[in-house]
């Protein structure tokens, strides 16, 4: 059962201890852009988690059997971004077909998932940390879950803020960033809990 324990720890570490948004600084643009309402934020989180998990899956194979095997490591960034862009295209087509309402709600942020640095960052960490196939999947999924938690949390806070008295200059981006700063402090409490 040691394998399962290791994977569980990896998952928790990725979601909380090394949270992609609040500790690693990845995924900030959608974090600020799609966090006005909890339900949109949650859908964005779901879509991103799906793309991340699929990306981790494909990237592992591309890296191991194409890039490393053929000594083409200098084409890594090119290969990875092509994988991500294609996956996002597929997800976009699927959502457009399955839920036009959601498609409209997410708007331009859907194709912008491609430029979510959290996905590319996660993909690049797979060869860096030398994860095997299962570890990559857990890592990608964990990254998505962590991102979703962060974005939903801040959306919840922002929804409450609508009824608050925020000075005009701080409205929108500044107050969100300040809130995120406080949240990041809170998440630091998880630090060192698990060292993977």
């Amino acid at each position, binding site marked *: 059962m040691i394998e399962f324990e290791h994977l569980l720890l990896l998952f928790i570490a990725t979601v909380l201890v090394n949270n992609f948004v609040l500790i690693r600084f990845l995924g900030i643009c959608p974090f600020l852009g799609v966090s006005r309402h909890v339900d949109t934020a949650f859908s964005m989180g779901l879509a991103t988690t799906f793309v991340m998990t699929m990306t981790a899956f494909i990237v592992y194979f591309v890296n191991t059997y194409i890039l490393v095997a053929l000594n083409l490591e*200098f*084409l890594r960034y*090119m290969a990875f971004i092509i994988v991500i862009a294609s996956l996002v295209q597929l997800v976009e087509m699927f959502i457009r077909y399955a839920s036009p309402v959601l498609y409209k709600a997410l708007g331009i942020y859907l194709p912008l998932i491609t430029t979510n640095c959290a996905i590319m960052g996660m993909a690049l960490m797979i060869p860096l940390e030398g994860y095997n196939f299962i570890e990559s999947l857990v890592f990608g999924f964990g990254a998505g879950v962590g991102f979703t938690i962060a974005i939903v949390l801040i959306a919840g806070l922002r929804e409450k803020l609508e009824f608050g008295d925020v000075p005009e200059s701080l409205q929108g981006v500044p107050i969100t960033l300040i809130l995120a700063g406080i949240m990041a402090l809170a998440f630091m409490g998880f*630090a*060192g809990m698990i*060292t*993977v």
Partner: protein
Amino acid sequence: MAESDRDSVKRLILTLTVIGAFGSLFLAFVFTWTNPHILEHEARAREEAIMTVLPDAATYEEEVRNDQTFYIGYDENENRAGVALTVIQGGYQGMIEVMVGVDPNREEIIYISILDHEETPGLGARITEESFKENFRNKPIDDYELVNRTPEEPYEVEGIAGATISAETVKEIVMEAGSIALEHFGGGS
């Protein structure tokens, strides 16, 4: 698929292939040009670390035993002057990589060099400071204990205020390196 859709896909593949081909060619050149420099930096960093942790060595030789790479130092009289190896372990923010110099004959740690880390600047990053590394100069190999004051016993290591995890990780790395080195080179071999 409609005619225009098929054309669209063809255009997509053609354009991307052309751009991709040009890009890849360009990058192949860039890689050939820069790779030697990158390798040289890595080699130089490693050599510096080895010389730091094996101060009596004039030269060193690389040897692999049981999948573990060792750097065996030799002084001017071609006597063995210690064995160096790198150990990596997860610290507070990321992996910490340490080069440890060991004297298997005297069962001592000679010195250490922090190769890579991602610890917090001003806190965990202080493991690279001389004052912390001095803990491990000519230290008898043992089970170490981290303490918050000047060490009184040889198995004590003075920690870093506010950076317990980083210091603890380095302590464990050094202990591991010591035991691996003794396992392969101990007993006056």
